[in-house]
């Protein structure tokens, strides 16, 4: 799972995909995850980072991460070529 190379990500959570012309907004935690994915961090590293920073638990993270990543793929912000 990778964020596409040409996808532009702004400080404020504004995301632009030049291939499709679509733009998106995301919340701060979504932005953090996208940044980490862009830096090619593993899911485990992302999990650790989120769990240490936010009041949440493992199973909530698991469920929401899976859903978020699926939306990134649906919106062609990420591709699943590993």
């Amino acid at each position, binding site marked *: 799972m990778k964020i596409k190379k040409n996808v532009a990500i702004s400080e404020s959570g504004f995301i632009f995909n030049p291939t499709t012309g679509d*733009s998106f*907004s995301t919340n701060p935690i979504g932005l953090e995850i996208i940044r980490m994915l862009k830096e090619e961090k593993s899911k485990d590293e992302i999990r650790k980072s989120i769990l240490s920073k936010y009041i949440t638990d493992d199973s909530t993270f698991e469920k929401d991460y899976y859903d978020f990543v699926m939306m990134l793929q649906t919106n062609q912000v990420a591709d699943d070529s590993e």
Partner: protein
Amino acid sequence: MEKIRYERPVIKKLNTGVMNKYGTRTEYAPVTNIDGARVKDLIAEFGSPLFVMSEQTIRKTYKDAVRAFTTRYPKVQFAWSYKTHYNNAICSVFHQEGSWSEVVSGFEYNKALLNGVPGNKIIFNGPDKTDDDLILAINNESMIHIDHLDELYRIIELTDELKKRPKVAIRVNMDTGVYPMWDRFGFNYESGQAWDAINKIILTNKMDLIGLHSHIGTFMLTPSAYAVAATKLSDLAFHIKSKFGKNITYIDMGGGFASRNTLKGSYLMGADSVPTFDDYAEAICSALLNSEYSKEDLPLLILESGRSLVDEAGFLLGTVLANKRLSDGRKATIMDFGVNILFTSFWYEHKISPAQEFSHYTEDSVIYGPLCMNIDVIRENITLPPMKKGDNVVVHTVGAYNMTQWMQFIAMRPNIVMIDMDGKPHLIRKKETLEYMNSLEITPEYLKGFKL
């Protein structure tokens, strides 16, 4: 390092410039209390889902409606439409404010009597009045609104047995330029049926025709339709006066004013687009004042408004059960309440607010109820902040018809509380229990006990 509040990560496509089917509105300002009572505390004490009625909003809305009419017309009387919300506490608030009652069945009639409404302040409408109902209403000198000829003839027979002169009105249906026309109820104006019924009543001389009634429809968005109705009823009253020399003492315009809700498919929020009490009052009162009545003969104006008086005072509190992702990518949120207790979601796009603080990030979602049925959709598309299991929501403007038309399906009906003028909640209807439900059922002896 102190940990911060967690919010589910969301990503939302931006549609620049174009108005998508979700519209551009956002409805996610959190609502954490109702009239000073905290939503979380109400749910902790009375459970979820929970209907909450605001006494303050009922009284304020009622006073506003009364003001709109009494500033334009000298004699005005409201009669609370029981079917809209016949919980006794709610009815009592309306009666304390001075409202009579309008009922359409023996059940509602007896509820009004037990609430302490004098018989002669009860208007009895509808096509379904049994002999027992009619006898009770005649003996109590209630206003009986005759719906059809069969009922008229039955009342004539009963007057002979009871040796009483009932006080009656007829319900008149008519073309007011609004479609569909409600011609199922009462006697038609244009075809001459209404005039025919009036002649039969007056010439048989067994009862007193004291009023004329119409209820032209519900959620009427065109006040001018009421002006047409008021003019046609006034014409009938004028003909009665010219032919028989008798005065009609009241004109009952029924209900039907829109509440501040948003009809499905409408791009405008109801609160911004529905007519006000002043708009309706202006149409009705001008039509009455401009017709042929002399100053002394001006009839009492009766109004049977239901939804417009109570819808806004009702809230439904609920809880998120789960989130799902639909195959087309939309978010689906499943609530602990469905169309069984919120059947008005078939007509309205109910406003739904989260009951806790959120960031300003939102998602387009579908809101489902918990029933195992496809039709159980509360909102087909709504923009809300990400919510997680256990979060609470407040559904707005649900005070009319839901707590009388709710279905006991799969689950039992929840508690209703009313927040009083000082912000204190009172339980006004207990949630149903398995014990209560079972107490109504009878299992024949021979079916009791089995081996599996």
